Every structure is written in structure tokens, then in C-alpha cells.
């Protein structure tokens, strides 16, 4: 039990002052601006937006600066900030099929309508540190090529036309959509709640769980059917206006995992799927999310429940790094009263132990 402790105000105030000093670092080095963080550490900003569950590049950059680059602390700051704003409502579901694609790859088909577009990627780099970057300087301008008007359907839509893959669960009109920022988690949870939980879940935790499924703990034979990254338009139906208002666009990454078959006496076998979607360019995150989404469908698909990644209560209760860090890190706050009672108990047990062991010795000595 944590018991509030009084006192130490001066020390706390000075500690925060020292923190601000350390955050600034050597004053001879120019101070970071938010636009530098947003422009040059863009993937850190993307991660903080995803797991902070708030799309706002500038706020995420501020959080990263304030947290001295500790991304989980930054995510915590963003989550706390969102609680201060009113919610106007819910957007129309975004259409990832209409994405202005910057990157789109498939590991299942080499020839897909619209083609494979590598975009800005670390893939195929040699992972050698670049001393040139240490010097700084402007890189070459990007190469340009003719654009084409060929649409880029989702790869799963192409497979779906021949019935080779299961369809996405259909939207039921007027069915409520679960929101774990409004209602506490309860189990079993629908796929809507599971995806919301995974979308804001810790990338490292999901990566490890996704990896565990590949290594045999809930194996589901995945292929990256498609990964796409780019901008989608967001629309919001405002009651007072009477039509869906375009709010602007956001960057999203989507991953469609194609997994091994299901079928039954009445249904022909088809591929199954796992889905990942996250703010910004968050490829590792969405791939891990899609693996875990598929693993969490084990019960629905009649698979043996044998692995952690298939256990929704385990996954959903431990995926949130703000909750996790809160509970782990609270251990460093004063627990003096608690510890005193443990200490008292331990002393008593040791005394009983000593008496029990001393008694036969005394008896022997007396004989």
C-alpha cells in the first residue's frame, strides 16, 4: 500500500529545477525546437501519437522534449493532456482504400494493381552507421517519376473477390462501438475493443508477443498481405452543420496479415486475417498488432488456447505502457508504513524460528 507522505516540498522543488537544468543540457549547445523534433525525429513523434492515442504532432514533439526523449514518459504526458479537453464527437470511419499512398508493399504478390511502392523505408539499407550524417548537410532532393492513376485496392480486397480470404466482419448498423476510454475493460472483449487496446498498446510488448506467435506460441502462419502508409482524409458529422465536414488528413499505417486457413463441413477453406492500424509511420507496430489481433481470434476460429498471445485478458491487461509504468514505478515511492509492518512480521517469524531451534539444543545441554 502506498501512503501519502508529507514533507520534502523544498527537496522536490529543487529536484524539478535540477531536472529542467539537465533537460536543457550544455547551454553552449543550441536548444531543440519543437519543429526540429517533429521534422527530424518524426518516427518518435509517430510512436508518441500512436501510444498516447492522440493525433497532434506538435503536442507529441513537446512531450518528447519535456520527457528528455523518454518516449513512455512522453506518452504519459500526452495521455494526461487529452483528459483536459472536451470531446466533440466521433469521426466517420477513415477509408484506407482511398489513402494517398507513400509506401505500399506486399509479400504475397509481386504484381499487384497499383504496384509496390517502397517509399521512405529502412528496408534494404545496410544498417551501417553513416559518418556523413554526423557532419550534417542537405541530402539530395528525392527522385521524381511519372505518377499513375491506377487505383491501389487493398490486397485483401483482391483476394476477397475470389473468396480466398474471409471477409472483414460486417458493420452492424446502430451497433455501439466499444470505447475503452469511456468504459472499463471487461472480458470477453469484442474485436473493436481489442483493436483499440492494441492500437494504443506498447510497441515493444506487442512486438514480443507477435514474435512469440512466430516462434510457435500460438502459431498462425502469417504473410504480410499488405503494408501501406500515407494520408487519409478525416470527416466529422457536426450536428449543427448537417453534413460530413472534412477536418483535414492524418497519416496512418495499415497492415493486413494473411494467415492460414479455416473451413468447415459447410464452408470451403479460406485464408484468415489479422489487422493492424496506427497513427503515423508505425510499421513494426502495425505488423505486431496484426499478428496479435489474429492470435486473439483463436477462440473464435476454434484453435487451441495454449499461448500468451491468444489470452485476451493477459494481452489487454498488460499492453498499456502508461498503466504498466505507473504500477511498476510506483514501487519507488515511499512505502515506509507498509514496509514497517512487513519488517515487524519478519522479526516475529525469525524470533519464533530461533526459539524453535534453540529449544532442542537447550534440552540436549540439560541432559
Amino acid at each position, binding site marked *: 500500500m502506498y501512503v501519502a507522505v508529507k514533507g520534502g516540498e523544498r527537496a522536490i522543488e529543487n529536484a524539478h529545477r535540477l531536472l529542467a537544468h539537465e533537460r536543457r543540457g550544455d547551454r553552449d549547445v543550441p536548444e531543440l525546437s519543437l519543429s526540429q523534433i517533429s521534422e527530424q525525429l518524426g518516427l518518435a513523434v509517430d510512436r508518441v501519437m500512436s501510444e498516447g492515442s492522440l493525433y497532434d504532432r506538435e503536442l507529441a514533439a513537446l512531450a518528447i522534449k519535456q520527457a528528455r526523449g523518454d518516449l513512455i514518459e512522453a506518452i504519459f504526458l500526452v495521455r494526461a493532456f487529452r483528459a483536459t479537453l472536451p470531446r466533440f464527437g466521433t*469521426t466517420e470511419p*477513415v477509408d484506407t482504400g482511398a489513402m494517398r499512398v507513400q*509506401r505500399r508493399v506486399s509479400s504475397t504478390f509481386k504484381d499487384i494493381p497499383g504496384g509496390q*511502392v517502397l517509399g521512405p523505408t529502412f528496408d534494404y539499407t545496410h544498417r551501417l552507421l553513416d559518418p556523413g550524417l554526423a557532419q550534417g548537410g542537405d541530402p539530395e532532393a528525392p527522385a521524381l517519376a511519372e505518377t499513375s492513376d491506377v487505383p491501389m485496392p487493398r490486397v485483401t480486397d483482391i483476394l476477397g473477390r475470389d473468396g480466398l480470404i474471409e471477409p472483414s466482419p460486417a458493420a452492424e448498423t446502430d451497433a455501439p462501438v466499444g470505447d475503452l476510454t469511456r468504459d472499463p475493460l471487461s472480458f470477453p472483449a469484442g474485436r473493436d475493443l481489442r483493436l483499440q487496446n492494441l492500437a494504443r498498446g506498447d510497441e515493444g510488448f506487442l512486438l514480443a508477443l507477435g514474435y512469440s506467435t512466430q516462434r510457435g506460441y500460438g502459431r498462425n502462419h502469417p504473410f504480410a498481405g499488405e503494408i501501406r502508409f500515407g494520408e487519409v482524409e478525416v470527416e466529422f458529422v457536426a450536428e449543427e452543420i448537417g453534413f460530413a465536414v472534412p477536418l*483535414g488528413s492524418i497519416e496512418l499505417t495499415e497492415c493486413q496479415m494473411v494467415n492460414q486457413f479455416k473451413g468447415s463441413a459447410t464452408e470451403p477453406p479460406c485464408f484468415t486475417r489479422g489487422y493492424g492500424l496506427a497513427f503515423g509511420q508505425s510499421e513494426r507496430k502495425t505488423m505486431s498488432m496484426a499478428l496479435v489481433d489474429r492470435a486473439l481470434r483463436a477462440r473464435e476460429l476454434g484453435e487451441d488456447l495454449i499461448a500468451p498471445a491468444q489470452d485476451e485478458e493477459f494481452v489487454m491487461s498488460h499492453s498499456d505502457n502508461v498503466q504498466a509504468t505507473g504500477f511498476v514505478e510506483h514501487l519507488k515511492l515511499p512505502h515506509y508504513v507498509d514496509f514497517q509492518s512487513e519488517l515487524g512480521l519478519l522479526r516475529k517469524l525469525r524470533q519464533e524460528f530461533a526459539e524453535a531451534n534453540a529449544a532442542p539444543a537447550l534440552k540436549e545441554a540439560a541432559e
Partner: protein
Amino acid sequence: MSGEMALQERRKGAMRVLAHVPSAEIGARMAELEVPSHRELRAAESGLVMVRGRIGGDGAPFNLGEATVSRAAVRLDSGEVGFGYVLGRDSDKARLIALCDALLQSPEHAQAIEAKVVAPLRAQVQAGREQSAAEAAATRVDFYTMVRGEG
């Protein structure tokens, strides 16, 4: 298309453009026009919307995460009410979009707003998108499948 639907499409079209332009650039173009007298119907404010995705991209909706949004409402003295809703926390931008939206509904001002503000900014946004698309297109790849193993 009825007149009302056409107007609605024009208003949406303008919002779709203005949402992608920094407020200073909208403001600079508005400054070149004679903007009629108007007042704020609702003070501009920032808040959140919950952004939804669809399971599998095309299935049932789920809540992905929130985004910051600013909104404002403006009434021209001639009665037209305009609304501004835009991603981010720039309430000036919401106010400018609301003002444009009101002006677009005014027969007297609609043409000037469309020609002097929305059309040039639309071209600017479009040019930016074409640039990005051309950069992405240069990374389009043809994979050749190699036969693995012997034979």
C-alpha cells in the same frame, strides 16, 4: 443537382482545401478581400474527436485514437452562418474557415472567395500532393522471383 446540394458540395470542397493550408496563408489571401462585417457566433475552442477505423479496412468500425480539433462559428451581418472545424489546435484557422464558409453562402461574396482564396489554395495543395506522389512513384519497384534451392 439541386442548388442546395451544389452549395453544400462547394462548402465541403472549400473546407477540404482550407483544412490543409496554414492559417497565415488563408489569412493573407483573406486580407486582400473586402470582408463584410461579421461576429463570432460561438467562441473558437479546441477539443478532441475520436478517430474511427474499420476492422480489416472495410469492416465494422472501431475506435483508433483521438485527434485534436478546433472549431468556430461566424455570422455575417447579412445572416449567413459559417462553420469551421479543423484538425489541430489552431483556433484562428477554425475562425478563418468559418468566415470563408459564411462568405461562400453569401451570393454577394461567394465568387470572390472561390476565385481569390479557395481556387489558388486548391492549386497549391494539389501541387504539393503531386510532388509527394511523384517522389513515391520513383520508389515503385519490380520484384523478380528467384527460384530457391536446386533445380
